[in-house]
């Protein structure tokens, strides 16, 4: 492996009002190397990469690039230097073609201004895609591609800058295993061409496969740089959280009540779901596993009336209930906690109290007036009970961390006295350390008699938490397995039942 140093950051610090985001952090990257950067959310990974790509300015520290001191003052300058970043959220324009997206802002207009030379552009894009062994038509509209293919377009775009450094922020978070594998193939191509790749990921298993070195940061501080070959996942995790965490747990066997709380019969939707039926027992955690697009979130949304169903019945404690809108679901005591908390769960610009009482405001009123005293009281109780870390109930929710935001959403449904809680990816975007707390909370809720549906794409999480595991594929429920009979291969088998 080439060891010529391509890039080095040393002693980088960055302070935001009231927060020391980075403190004296080091990071370096060699030619032809994949260097993973890991840390919990809020550890400073993104901040560091934003400094490197010119979005933020560093307060102190030095950046050496190809032997020269540089000062990356803007994203444009980063591009000129040859540093490209692929953000976690894709930045593509769905109504433009693959080629147009790749070359946006750099259209070659020299010859026939102001008209674009589309033929040339398509040819260039085709050449680039071939070089990366990507089977994509440059003329396809990006909006018609799957998320995975769109990710590939982002990578092609980054490569098209012909830079030396490519930063990938959580590139596999929405990819299937097969798609991840083809992404790795591209990364290996880039490596072979002598490029340096900075790889940020929460999926530590991937690092073993793709990275050469791993740098861990925690709370804005540099912790350690490890050679991948000489370390293992538990070590990385313990460095990230500062203590050891058990990765492969199974739930304690809880005394299971056999009362069926919720019975779903033959739910179908226009586009995806086909005849889904299952039962949920009191005090049970029913895990829902499956690949992206298998229909788990769609099932939850159809169940709570957020999207229309074409068929199917829902029974609550034996009684059929008509759920046509989310308000019907809430009325029936079903609370839905979306994977995208910021979009579907929280009022970010409002305070904790407001969010906690959001689903139960009529319960805090007298003659239409909201009683602010009891509302704040309930919020303080929730803060204490769920250990929500916030200076007070008046804090705006956007200022809380992911884990605490999730607790606020949970508090909202507990305040509404919901007996059935649907958690969609309960720990997405939540730190390893805080995940543990959410797990404990879920277990506690179940043992207190709440029934929980937990949708998760992380198999260790499903295995750790669920009493039973329902697996979906292509809109159908392919199997429900008892935890004691379940392992990752079995689940994957069900999850790919209808796939080619």
């Amino acid at each position, binding site marked *: 492996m080439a060891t010529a140093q391509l890039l080095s950051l040393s002693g980088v610090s960055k302070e935001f009002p009231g927060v020391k985001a980075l403190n004296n952090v080091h990071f370096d990257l060699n030619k032809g190397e994949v260097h993973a950067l890991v840390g919990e959310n809020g550890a400073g990974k993104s901040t560091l990469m934003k400094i490197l790509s010119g979005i933020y300015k560093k307060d102190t520290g030095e950046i050496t690039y190809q032997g020269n001191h540089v000062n990356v003052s803007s994203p444009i300058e980063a591009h000129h230097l040859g540093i490209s970043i692929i953000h976690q959220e894709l930045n593509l324009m769905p109504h433009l073609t693959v080629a147009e997206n790749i070359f946006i802002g750099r259209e070659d207009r020299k010859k026939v201004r102001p008209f674009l030379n589309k033929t040339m552009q398509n040819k260039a894009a085709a050449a680039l895609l071939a070089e990366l062994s990507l089977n994509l038509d440059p003329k396809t509209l990006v909006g018609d591609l799957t998320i995975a293919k769109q990710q590939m377009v982002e990578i092609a775009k980054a490569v098209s800058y012909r830079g030396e450094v490519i930063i990938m922020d959580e590139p596999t978070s929405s990819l299937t295993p097969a798609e991840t594998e083809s992404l790795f193939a591209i990364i290996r191509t880039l490596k072979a061409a002598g490029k340096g790749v900075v790889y940020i990921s929460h999926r530590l298993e991937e690092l073993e496969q793709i990275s050469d070195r791993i740098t861990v940061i925690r709370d804005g501080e540099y912790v350690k740089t490890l050679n991948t070959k000489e370390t293992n996942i538990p070590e990385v995790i313990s460095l990230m959280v500062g203590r050891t965490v058990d990765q492969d747990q199974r739930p304690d066997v809880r005394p299971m009540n056999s009362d069926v709380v919720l019975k779903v019969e033959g739910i179908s939707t226009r586009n995806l779901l086909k005849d889904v039926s299952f039962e949920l027992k009191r005090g049970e955690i029913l895990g829902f596993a499956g690949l992206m697009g298998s229909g788990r979130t769609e099932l939850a949304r159809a169940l709570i009336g957020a999207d229309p169903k074409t068929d199917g019945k829902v029974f609550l404690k034996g009684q059929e209930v008509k759920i046509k809108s989310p308000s019907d679901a809430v009325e029936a005591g079903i609370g839905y906690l979306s994977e995208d908390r910021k979009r579907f769960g929280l009022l970010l610009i409002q305070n904790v109290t407001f969010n906690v009482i*959001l689903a139960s405001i009529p319960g805090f009123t007298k003659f239409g007036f909201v009683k602010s005293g009891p509302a704040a009281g309930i919020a303080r109780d929730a803060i204490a009970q769920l250990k929500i870390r916030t200076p007070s109930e008046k804090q705006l929710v956007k200022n809380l961390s992911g884990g605490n935001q999730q607790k606020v959403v949970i508090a909202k449904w507990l305040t509404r006295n919901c007996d059935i809680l649907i958690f969609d990816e309960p720990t997405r975007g939540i730190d390893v350390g805080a995940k543990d707390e959410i797990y404990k909370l879920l277990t506690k809720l179940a043992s207190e008699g709440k029934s929980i549906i937990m949708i998760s794409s992380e198999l260790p999480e499903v295995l750790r938490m669920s009493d039973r595991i329902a697996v979906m594929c292509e809109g159908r429920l392919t199997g429900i397995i008892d935890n004691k009979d379940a392992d990752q291969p079995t689940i994957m088998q069900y999850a790919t039942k209808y796939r080619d």
Partner: protein
Amino acid sequence: MSDVLKTAGEEVQGESKIKEIIRREIGQVLALGSLVVLFAFFSIMRPVFYSWANVSNGILMSTTVTGLLAIGITFVIITGGIDLSIGTGTALCAIMVGKLVVAWHLNLAGGVIVGVVVGGLLGVVNGILITLLKLPPFIATLATMKAAQGLALIISQMRPIHFADGVKGWDQIAQGNLIPQIPNGVTILFVGATIASIILNRTVLGRYTFAIGSNSEATKLSGVKVDRWLIAIYALCGIYVGLAAVMLTSRLGSAQPDLGLGYELEAIAAVIIGGTSILGGKGSIRGTIIGALIMSVLINGLRILELQQEWQYVVVGIVIIFAVWSDNVRRRRAGDVS
């Protein structure tokens, strides 16, 4: 440790209550400050500016109609919506009031009820277009703005309706003095503002106004019947439009079919100057009233100084830019917006 929030907000803890309030309401404190500075400036330039005659008749009375419109649209803007129909809606309500009061010889209360009902219905129509037909508020209310303009002209047969002497006491709604020295129009504006403020801050409707504006999808998934509440909010806005129309007819002694177009923009400007976010989720009636007063004080002051009218427009434009820009700067400093 990384899970613990570390934000500017955390510092609030150590501070005194007053400081906390100032910090939280800094936008309004600044707006109020600007109002005081403007007032002082014009008073020094021409002392007649602060005479009660000018303050009551020149400044406060000229705030009544746009002030009531601005109060109504504050609710809509906090939901993240917009209502362009409030200007021509005022004309439509005024004409309906004129028609019915003059034709049916309704008394004062009857006339006010007609205005409020017509305004409320217009709001319901807006609400239905936005929720059931799922039209964007801008488009829906652009359509009703046009329709209201047309209806006002059709119903009035393009003639102003003179309230003549047959309608007893109609002019007293705005011009009378229930409280000595204070024109009723001003009293109504402030009572209307107080009621609106209570609705916004203390009632279920107010909470949902903020909730919808912060995140309507999350609000809906929390079991709130967002569509119904939105219709109610647009209706409430319409009720204030009706009140503004009653006020306008009382001030003018007539209902003018072509009056009102453009008032919606003045109302929106007042709301924005008052610190309500055009993106929704944040705002206050107090801010809106301060914003409306800033506009009136500015225009009245410039008139008193006899600045050429063309330049008056330019100054107003600059003030709007400055107000919103300074608010943005302040929020960015406080880490309020990313």
